[in-house]
């Protein structure tokens, strides 16, 4: 099966299939290799399937040169290491290190910005949500959006997108 084409054509169904097919073997591998409990292994495997999906979407993965389970184990391996490093750090220091303080603050600020944007996007209405998602996330051009969402032409989409951006700006400002 060409998993990459499948993900591109039918992402949700394929991800569920991948998840069900490889969940037991990959989590068993994680539990054995890194002595993780089942819950942690499962959570890491979920992240791992999502990572595989984003790699396909962002064209970081265009050809699978090995079996999919080998690829998933590769991602899980790195994720397990990062997970254990984080856990060790948390148990060693129960207060944030001063040298990382700025970094932590910046990250927190960025996170709250994303949360604010998410809230505002949800208040935008389906029409604007679709236009902005298709343009900025799916990277469709105006012509493709006009065909997908049944707009009159690309210029109409462009004008509408501009209005949506301005509306989003207002919503963000209002929620701040």
């Amino acid at each position, binding site marked *: 099966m060409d998993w990459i084409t499948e993900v591109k054509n039918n992402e949700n169904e394929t991800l569920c299939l991948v998840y069900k097919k490889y969940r037991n073997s990959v989590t068993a591998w994680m539990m054995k290799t890194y002595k993780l409990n089942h819950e942690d292994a499962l959570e890491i495997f979920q992240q791992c399937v999502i990572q595989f999906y984003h790699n396909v979407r962002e064209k970081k993965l265009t050809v699978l040169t090995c079996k999919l389970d080998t690829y998933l184990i590769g991602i899980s391996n790195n994720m397990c290491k990062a997970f254990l490093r984080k856990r060790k750090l948390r148990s060693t220091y129960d207060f944030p290190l001063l040298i990382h303080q700025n970094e932590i603050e910046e990250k927190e600020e960025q996170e709250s910005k994303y949360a604010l944007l998410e809230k505002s996007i949800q208040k935008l209405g389906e029409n604007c949500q679709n236009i902005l998602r298709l343009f900025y996330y799916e990277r469709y051009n105006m012509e493709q959006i006009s*065909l997908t969402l049944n707009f*009159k032409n690309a210029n109409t989409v462009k004008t509408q997108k501009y209005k949506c951006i301005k509306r989003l700006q207002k919503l963000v400002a209002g929620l701040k």
Partner: protein
Amino acid sequence: MKNLDLLDSWFNVKLSDHQKKKLESEFINTVDDHITLKDLKDIEETFKRIDTKNKLTMLKELDSKEKSRPTIVPITSSKYILVAASVLLILGFSWLFMNEDNNNSLYTEFHEPYSSIANKRSMDSQKNSLDQAYEYYLSGDYQLAEEHFAEVQNDTAQFYRALSLMEINEHQRSIDVMIGIQNISENYPIQFYKGLSYLKLNDIKAATKEFREVPKVQTYYFKRAAALLKKIQ
């Protein structure tokens, strides 16, 4: 808007990495509309997070569905007939409920509000009511949109009235309105949306008939109807 066009070109896949970097250095600061490239990248990242969250929920649901599966308990032979009858009853009911669940999830998966309305403006005396209706529809206030569309007697307005009714879960009324405008231009995906309403009402036969009648010229809806038919069957 000119500056936004320039910033948007960063998201154009045709730009090389070098061109993107050049654009980044030129637009590192705020431009006229108070929109920066960083703002737009943040929008992209937020959509990525929303997508990730939805997909994680979907995977977690797979686990919880499996966990909630019933376990098999051994039974004695004297109770076989009673148990078999109960199982048949339960299967009958679960088939009914699962079918309803399946139709609901298909509806959720394939339904998206029809949005080709940005440039529609009325030309006659009905202007106020129609424009107001479109405004309500765009802002997602479907109850008020329906009331305003109801006042305008033309097929397009009635089509949007039917769509508004769908959004407020009034599927039978929506179907009734759509039946009244069967001769509307082929550009309007009336069969597709009518099919969705029938699906929501669990009338698979009628839904299938509508999805089969989606004209080929409506490429996008034709493909979606085909995908839906595949899933229904």
